[in-house]
């Protein structure tokens, strides 16, 4: 399968450098929590700072490094923009990870370099980031071709020349665990050509049946891993712009409920899987929150409950002028299980009387019931509470 691998090297760092050009000139670290997410190449080469390393260690290794916290929401947004831009080139696009995507270019009737140039241009226009592009048969060869190009350049491997292209490339380019790469190097297998020169059975004997076979095939430029196209989900979006800037959460809640009413009307008999809330000032995103429902829902009341909970606890430092809600993952609503015994049935009444007697006997509640308070909370301890049965 003829694919283009589109890759923005050191994606997080590239995004941050767009916002803070200091990072282009100084050794820099992007960190998530207390771990390194990405580091400038010169920092990695000089001091060994690497992704996953505790930030404290990395700072000690090079105290002068500029450290910036990761903005994961922004990276997701920019990856989404990249995906959408690539959709203009070909209909089948897979986002492999943030900053790296594959496009099926098999059926596209264009010179490979011209196509790669077009891909780089649309990505740069949509994201402000310049990618490297590799065009080849299969994901692995395309990825290696892209990895060896500087941003803005393209590497094209002609069909049938994959093995020649890979011959002198380092085994460290293989998508394998660091231990496997180390194992290859201890066996004096430094290039992909070294592996390709061995019988398949010898590689299988060292690295196991399927693992060894995969290494051998990749070294030959054979990669059968299919493209898994990104599916565009239907979504519904409504936004409301206030007449003047708003800070009070009550106003946001009221606006949110109004938006939900509109969305529920458009949703009809279908259900939504996610609800994305955004508060903006002009085009600038001040706050956002993605809520994933435990099951698809069309229940406006349930959505409104979650919306109210989120917005009423919101502490904004700036005034909002626009509120937007997007319902995503539109599909059919899942089946619901009704209660076996209706609340007002005689069994419930006699049970309640018995529970009251037991409470009176012991002087404290002994029968409790679970009540859902925030069933969609991301924190399991906030979803339900126990209250005395007769409370």
């Amino acid at each position: 399968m003829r694919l283009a691998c589109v890759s923005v090297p050191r994606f997080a760092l590239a995004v941050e450098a767009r916002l803070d050009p200091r990072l282009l000139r100084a050794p820099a670290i992007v960190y998530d929590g207390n771990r390194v997410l990405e580091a400038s190449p010169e920092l990695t080469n000089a001091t060994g700072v690497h992704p996953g390393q505790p930030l404290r260690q990395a700072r000690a290794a090079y105290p002068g490094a500029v450290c910036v916290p990761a903005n994961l929401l922004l990276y997701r947004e920019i990856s989404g923009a990249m995906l959408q831009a690539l959709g203009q080139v070909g209909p089948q696009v897979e986002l492999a990870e943030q900053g790296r995507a594959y496009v099926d270019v098999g059926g596209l009737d264009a010179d490979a370099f011209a196509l790669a140039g077009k891909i780089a241009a649309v990505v740069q226009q949509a994201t402000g980031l310049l990618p490297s592009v590799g065009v080849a048969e299969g994901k692995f060869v395309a990825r290696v071709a892209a990895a060896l190009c500087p941003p803005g350049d393209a590497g094209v491997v002609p069909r049938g020349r994959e093995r020649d292209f890979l011959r002198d490339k380092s085994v460290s380019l293989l998508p394998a665990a660091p231990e496997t790469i180390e194992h290859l190097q201890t066996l004096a297998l430094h290039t992909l050509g070294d592996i390709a020169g061995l019988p398949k059975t010898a590689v299988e004997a060292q690295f196991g049946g399927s693992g060894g076979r995969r290494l051998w095939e990749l070294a030959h430029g054979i990669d059968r891993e299919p493209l898994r196209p990104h599916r565009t989900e239907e979504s519904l979006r409504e936004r409301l712009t206030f007449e003047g800037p708003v800070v009070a959460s009550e106003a946001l809640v009221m606006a949110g409920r109004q938006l939900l009413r509109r969305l529920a009307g458009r949703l009809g008999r279908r259900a939504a899987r996610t609800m994305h809330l955004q508060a903006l000032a002009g085009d600038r995103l001040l706050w956002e929150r993605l809520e994933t429902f435990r099951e698809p829902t069309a229940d406006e009341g349930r959505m409104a409950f979650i919306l109210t909970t989120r917005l009423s606890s919101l502490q904004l430092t700036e005034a909002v002028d626009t509120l937007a809600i997007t319902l995503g993952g539109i599909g059919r609503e899942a089946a619901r299980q009704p209660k076996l015994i209706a609340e007002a049935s005689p069994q419930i009444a006699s049970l309640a009387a018995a529970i009251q007697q037991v409470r009176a006997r012991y002087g404290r509640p002994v029968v409790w019931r679970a009540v859902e308070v925030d069933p969609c909370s991301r924190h399991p301890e906030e979803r339900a509470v126990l209250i005395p049965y007769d409370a």
Partner: protein
Amino acid sequence: MLTTSGGTGGPDTVRRLNVPQPLRVEAGDDGTPRRVQHRGQTARPGRWRAVDQVRERYRVEDRWWTSEPVAREYFDLLLDGGLPFAVFRDRIDGRWYAQRDG
């Protein structure tokens, strides 16, 4: 920082369900649990059990805009003998807790 009621209110108060329970975990260099001190339903310290498989690993970041942010890294584990078990590491105080996602 994780703050919990500990599930011990007065007799008439509301009790939280599924409150995270502190536990001891031995993790590898990559932060993945290798052994956990599983005490089942008892209050005793319990015995150490090896982690057979990490089925899922994911992060929950929330309320970062408040003074009580939540930052957890959850691990959905299979312990030796095939027992499913979920733990998370509070990324703010660095402690481990058991909690099922139910």
